[in-house]
């Protein structure tokens, strides 16, 4: 483990009462960090950046950042903060140019770099605005530009797509994917969106209550979620039975108004909590012994009167269920 991480990230982070996690990533990898609110995602990023009192060790590109402690400014970071934290007294341009200038780039060059990044993120025309005069999404884009403009060795992105409109988010995902593809350092991406994790990341780390609950490739994590949170995120139903987890797609669920016949194991009674369009289907959230998702056709939804409050039976065929160890 220590071996293959020499050129990447190898961290063991312990923050009193908030986080106890180990993390490795190879150079060039994008690691998605997912988990529910308060799981410790931001804490992990802040600890790696040196902004939070931690114990443990952090090695990046073969060098220790903890023995002796490396100054924050020497860590070569690009950090998109969850709350943006744009300098309120500087214009968008000066915010983005700050990093290059702090690293000794001449004013003119730094500003050219900054302008290029702002253009790339579609906010070039707002370069002379102060953060207070930007909309939420515009500020978020400036914050991303600022983090990328320094060509960092470790990229820490805390929900970079939050508050962005769908067009920009898509474009930005592409932009970021392109950028990250030939990015030599390690990138950590905190997100609440399955698409980010699945399209941008090489690895996914699932945090839960300050611990790593699961780790693996996006495909693996998406197919065999170990926590309710991930199951929700990727839109699967997951049931825990002792040491075994069983997952199945909402599409595999049959909805009926009366108790279906067949094996009792895979049928549940419940009440519809919500019904919302999902692609071409209607997705139901049904609450009973478990909270389960079920997709039905709009026609069926209308026919069966599947509005919130309706009592229904759900069933799923054994062949549609995937079982794996919870370990």
């Amino acid at each position, binding site marked *: 483990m220590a071996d293959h991480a020499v050129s990447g990230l190898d961290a063991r982070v312990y923050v009193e009462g908030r986080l106890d996690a180990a993390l490795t990533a190879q150079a060039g990898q994008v690691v998605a960090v997912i988990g529910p609110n308060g799981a410790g995602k931001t804490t992990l990023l802040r600890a790696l950046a040196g902004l939070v009192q931690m114990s443990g060790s952090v090695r990046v590109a073969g060098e220790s950042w903890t023995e002796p402690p490396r100054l924050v400014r020497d860590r070569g*970071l690009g950090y998109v903060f969850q709350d943006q934290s744009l300098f309120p007294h500087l214009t968008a341009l000066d915010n983005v140019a*700050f990093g290059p200038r*702090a690293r000794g780039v001449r004013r003119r060059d730094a500003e050219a770099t900054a302008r290029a990044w702002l253009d790339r993120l579609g906010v070039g025309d707002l370069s002379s605005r102060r953060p207070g005069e930007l909309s939420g999404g515009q500020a978020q884009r400036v914050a991303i530009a600022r983090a990328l403009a320094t060509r960092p060795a470790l990229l820490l992105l805390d929900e970079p797509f939050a508050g962005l409109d769908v067009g920009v988010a898509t474009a930005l995902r592409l932009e970021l994917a392109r950028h990250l593809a030939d990015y030599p350092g390690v990138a950590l991406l905190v997100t609440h969106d399955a698409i980010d994790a699945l399209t941008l990341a090489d690895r996914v780390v699932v945090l839960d209550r300050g611990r790593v609950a699961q780790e693996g490739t996006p495909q693996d994590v998406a197919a065999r979620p170990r926590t309710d949170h991930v199951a929700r995120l990727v839109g699967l139903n997951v049931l825990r039975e002792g040491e075994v987890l069983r997952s199945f797609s909402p599409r595999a669920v049959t909805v009926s108004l009366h108790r279906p016949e067949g094996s009792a194991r895979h049928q549940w009674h419940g009440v519809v909590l919500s019904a919302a369009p999902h692609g071409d289907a209607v997705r139901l959230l049904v609450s009973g012994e478990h909270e389960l998702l079920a997709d039905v056709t709009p026609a069926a939804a209308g026919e069966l009167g599947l509005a919130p409050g309706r009592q229904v039976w759900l069933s799923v065929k054994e062949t549609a269920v995937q079982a794996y160890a919870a370990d």
Partner: protein
Amino acid sequence: MTTARTLGRPPLVLLVPAALAAALLVLPLVSLVLDTPWATFLDRLGSREVGEALRLTAVASGATVVACVLLGTPLAWLLARVDFRGRAVLRAAVTVPLVLPPVVAGVALVTALGRTGVLGPLLREGGVSLPYTTPAVVIAHTFVSMPFYVLSVEGAMRSAGERYDVVAATLGASRWTTFRRVTLPLAMPGVLAGAVLAWARSLGEFGATITFAGNYPGTTQTMPSLIYTTLQADPEVARTLSMILLLASVAILAALRNRWLTTP
């Protein structure tokens, strides 16, 4: 951004004490103005003695503000941002000159920098004799004014918080760069308020100055010293002189505050 109207009218429970405070501060000034023998105002203004004192006052208070900003800002930063042993002691020590009656401050300066003072021999070897010179005036003014400046700036740096300093560090900025481009600009309202406080304190200072630097027209006699001296001989004239000092400073203050201190 917000119209005052939609936030509502100021409540009486705040307006009444505010009016009282304003009255307490303004009334004495107004009666001083009413009591001034304006007929002789221009004559006095033109006198050589007054001219010299005004010039020296301007020089001394200007130099004091510069000294406070150059030396006091780093000290305020140190107290606000760096955790070191003895910080509490240093912080208390910085505040002490505030408490000293000005004359005692002058005595303290004499015992430290006077000819027979602690540093006297050292200064004499360097060929420097401070007392009774204009630099001594500036030192006395700086000694009494600096605490106001440091307290104000330290407070502003504290309330601005370390948050953006940290952001600057993640962007690779050294502490000096951070200080210049982030900490200082964000504390600017406090820096300006502190500079005004220090400047005003320096404008009114004479106790420490007379004791440490003497009271000689042209070299160490500032307006307040002149007013003090004149008060002994001719209170009427002293009032006129006060009015000159007052008007000059009000003009400058009004200009400063409206230009720099009004932006929120």
